[in-house]
């Protein structure tokens, strides 16, 4: 955070304008010399805007580079290394783990201008630069009868580079897999500024880069696998009088053989927050709402699967409604995508988790988290990709009235519930700084040491996105939300 000065009051003289375009520091000056003023941001007003993602504010960078090519990235990385400052990659900063919010002042490389995208329909591939907006891949591939399935809620904003850095998921991931499952090859710039092209052969170094949050290298381009979209999709909404019943219905439906394309859950507070935004007539009274798409190329199977899900929901005490049109189904999915930001209507700040637990444990886990929330006095809400056991418990709070310490403790207890049931801490958002303090409980010391060995091998100086993913080796870190 920047130091606070006395606030301006009406009528007080306006401060003198800064000399726009003149770099504030040596790094910015050097970058401007190398790349030209169009690709380098050095004014405070510009740099302040590259210190946050969608969950956290970090340190204001010394300079921001907006590269237009991999060569620009190489130049920027070498200049930052020569200056001895950290390097943080950034897409659209819609991430939810603090991955793109710098822990220390340094260089931010923002990929939003690297937007070259080519579709190769005959190979069912797309080649995308890191700054391509996620949804743009599907939009450009659709005329060729192809789509790019990974669909994080922010896909209108988020970038391919950011998605790969966090290994982002979305509702379609239950059936179709997460971002990393669609990568055929990667180009990345390493900590020394060398460019590498990786494929998924042994060693699968591309797999190592995916989800590494820019701590091992900077992904500059990717070859992505495209698929034909399912011919038929049917949407269903079920509402339940109790959260656990919803989870039971999910387990039962999947056990009965249904493989829905999407299987999403939101609790009552989430439903009400999005209903306040979109006014769709969602069931405000239900304790849990389940949104389901069954899809495929065989209509009979798609409808059979929907019937299986319906039966499981009814058996668990739910009420079922079928979407009558494509427009209704689109509106329901827009509602689901809006849940996370809509929670801002309840409290201004939140601690957001991303746990994954075995599906069989879901009813117990959602009930335990619900009970923890009820006992805590905080607004604890739950939603997520319940089909693959990926839940987003969120603790909503007002930092002016509620203690961040207490929020952190509660978040820790929620994380422990997941771990106790054999779960993990991050399904799709990444670790960032938000979940870093819990890593010691989630990963055993031997594995953690191996992860540190990997980090040191690829980034010996610790220049790449320091303070993310791995806890300090000394064990002295206590990051706070």
């Amino acid at each position, binding site marked *: 955070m920047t130091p606070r000065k006395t*606030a301006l009051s009406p009528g007080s003289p306006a401060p003198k304008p800064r000399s726009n375009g003149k770099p504030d520091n040596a790094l910015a000056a050097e970058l401007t010399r190398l790349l030209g003023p169009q690709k380098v941001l050095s004014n405070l007003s510009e740099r302040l*805007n590259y210190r946050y993602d*969608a969950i956290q504010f970090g340190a204001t960078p010394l300079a921001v580079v907006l590269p237009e090519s991999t060569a620009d990235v190489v130049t920027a990385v070498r200049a930052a290394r020569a200056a001895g400052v950290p390097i943080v990659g950034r897409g659209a*900063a819609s991430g939810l783990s603090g991955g793109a919010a710098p822990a220390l002042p340094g260089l931010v490389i923002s990929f939003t201008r690297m937007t070259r995208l080519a579709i190769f329909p005959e190979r069912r591939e797309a080649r995308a630069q890191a700054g391509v907006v996620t949804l743009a891949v599907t939009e450009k591939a659709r005329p060729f009868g192809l789509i790019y399935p990974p669909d994080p809620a922010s896909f209108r904003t988020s970038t391919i580079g950011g998605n790969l850095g966090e290994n982002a998921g979305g509702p379609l991931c239950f059936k179709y897999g997460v971002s990393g499952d669609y990568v055929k090859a990667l180009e990345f710039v390493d900590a020394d500024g060398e460019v590498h092209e990786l494929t998924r052969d042994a060693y699968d170094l591309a797999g190592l880069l995916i989800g590494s949050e820019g701590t091992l290298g900077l992904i500059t381009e990717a070859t992505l696998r495209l698929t034909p979209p399912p011919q038929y999709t049917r949407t269903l909404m079920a509402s339940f009088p109790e959260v656990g019943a919803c989870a039971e219905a999910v387990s039962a439906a999947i056990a009965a053989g249904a493989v829905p394309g999407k299987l999403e859950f939101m609790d009552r507070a989430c439903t009400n927050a999005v209903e306040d935004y979109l006014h769709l007539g969602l069931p405000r009274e239900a304790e849990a709402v389940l949104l389901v798409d069954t899809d495929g190329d065989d209509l009979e199977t798609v409808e059979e699967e929907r019937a299986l899900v319906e039966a499981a929901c009814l058996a668990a005490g739910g009420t079922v409604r079928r979407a009558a049109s494509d427009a209704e189904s689109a509106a329901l999915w827009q509602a689901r995508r809006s849940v996370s*930001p809509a929670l801002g*209507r309840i409290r201004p700040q939140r601690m957001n988790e991303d746990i994954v637990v075995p599906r069989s444990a879901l009813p117990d886990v959602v009930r335990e988290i619900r009970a923890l929330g009820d006992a805590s006095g905080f607004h604890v809400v739950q939603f997520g990709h319940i089909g693959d056991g990926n839940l987003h418990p969120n603790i909503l709070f007002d930092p002016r009235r509620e203690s961040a310490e207490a929020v952190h403790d509660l978040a820790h207890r929620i994380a422990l519930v997941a771990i106790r049931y054999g779960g993990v801490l991050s399904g799709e958002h990444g670790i960032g700084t938000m979940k870093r303090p819990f890593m010691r409980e989630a990963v055993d010391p031997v594995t953690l040491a191996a992860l540190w060995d990997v980090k040191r091998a690829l980034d010996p100086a610790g220049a790449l996105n320091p303070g993310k993913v791995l806890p300090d080796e000394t064990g002295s870190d206590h990051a706070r939300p």
Partner: protein
Amino acid sequence: MNNDIPVQHIGPQGEVMAHAVDACVHCGFCLPACPTYALLGDEMDSPRGRIVLMKEVLEGALPLADAAPHLDRCLGCQACVTACPSGVPYGELITSFRGWSEPQRERSPLDRAKRAAILKILPAPKVFSLAARVGQYTKPLAPVLPTALRAPLDLLPEHVPAMQPSPRVTPARGQRRGRVAFLAGCAQQALAPNFNAATLRVLARNGIEVVLPEGQGCCGAAALHTGAREEALRLVRQNLAAFDPGDYDAILSNAAGCGAGLKEYPVVLHGLPDEAQARAFAVKVQDISEFLAGLLREGDLEPFLPTSRPLTVAYHDACHLAHAQGVRAAPRELLRAIPGVTVLEVPEGDLCCGSAGTYNLEQPELANQLGVRKARNILSTMPDLIASGNIGCHTQIQSHVRRQGSRVPVLHTVEVLDLAYRGEL
């Protein structure tokens, strides 16, 4: 968003601003909705970036002059408000901020004179008409003039029509079914007098008596959105004195920008003694299309004559109707109610046309890029007619569509309805 905005120093407008900043969860959902982010691709020129910049300036952590270029580029189109799940009242934030910061701005004498001239001429229909006439004759000189003078000339139609003053009272035709007050607007009286004439005819035909209350003036939106808060307050209070909401079923505007401005009065007067009066006024305000669609839904709208041939109408969502007032369905329903009309959806329909009040005068380059893009998107639908509900959009779209070589008529929605009643479509 966490903030230390010193509300107690700033006063009631500080509350408005702090509330908006509080509500932002910096998710970035607004980025793809923002016209300047689409053109410039950097965070400072996105709604999220601007919220952070305003917060920093209000907290005293960033000099106003540093933030100003990015804040000045905001069109105030409020597409971000539509895209925002957490309900940030961005329009209220930027308007309040402009009002709060304008007295502290350092501007060149030329800049000051230009802004003062815009705010003097725009709200005075007679002066505007005169200026437009002069402009019409100097139009051929446009290519050799500096940008500041060229921009307004480019937007002028080839023919500036004669003013048609509206009568104080237009009686209902047939049995009187309602009585409304009407805000006549400013620039449009000079540039497109038929908007008001068509509005009065359509209302009268539906049994609605229309009153233009004496003493009404400019809605104040142009002053408000350029930070001239004192001038805006004067205009707001002038209209509150002229319109007694108890006397009318509704207070109507046929300009999206003005209607949105009238609905903003309670925010402008937040924390002041006449706030309650502004609330009583604002609940009665409706866009002409909202009011007519209300009649249509009740089955009370006089039926239209069918068109002489199948007609496609590309409907352009004015930002101040769609985003600021949430009016999207009403104009489409009305147009579809004309037998023979098919309404076409414009690609990138949520994106501003670049007119945005005085924006095309203050930021001509960005406004021009958006205008070109909008005209291209509209013409891609190959419409027989283009309809919209705002004088600013109308002028901008007409100018850019013509420059792209198209002669497609550009009309106000209510003009289309009027033609349908007369059997002239």
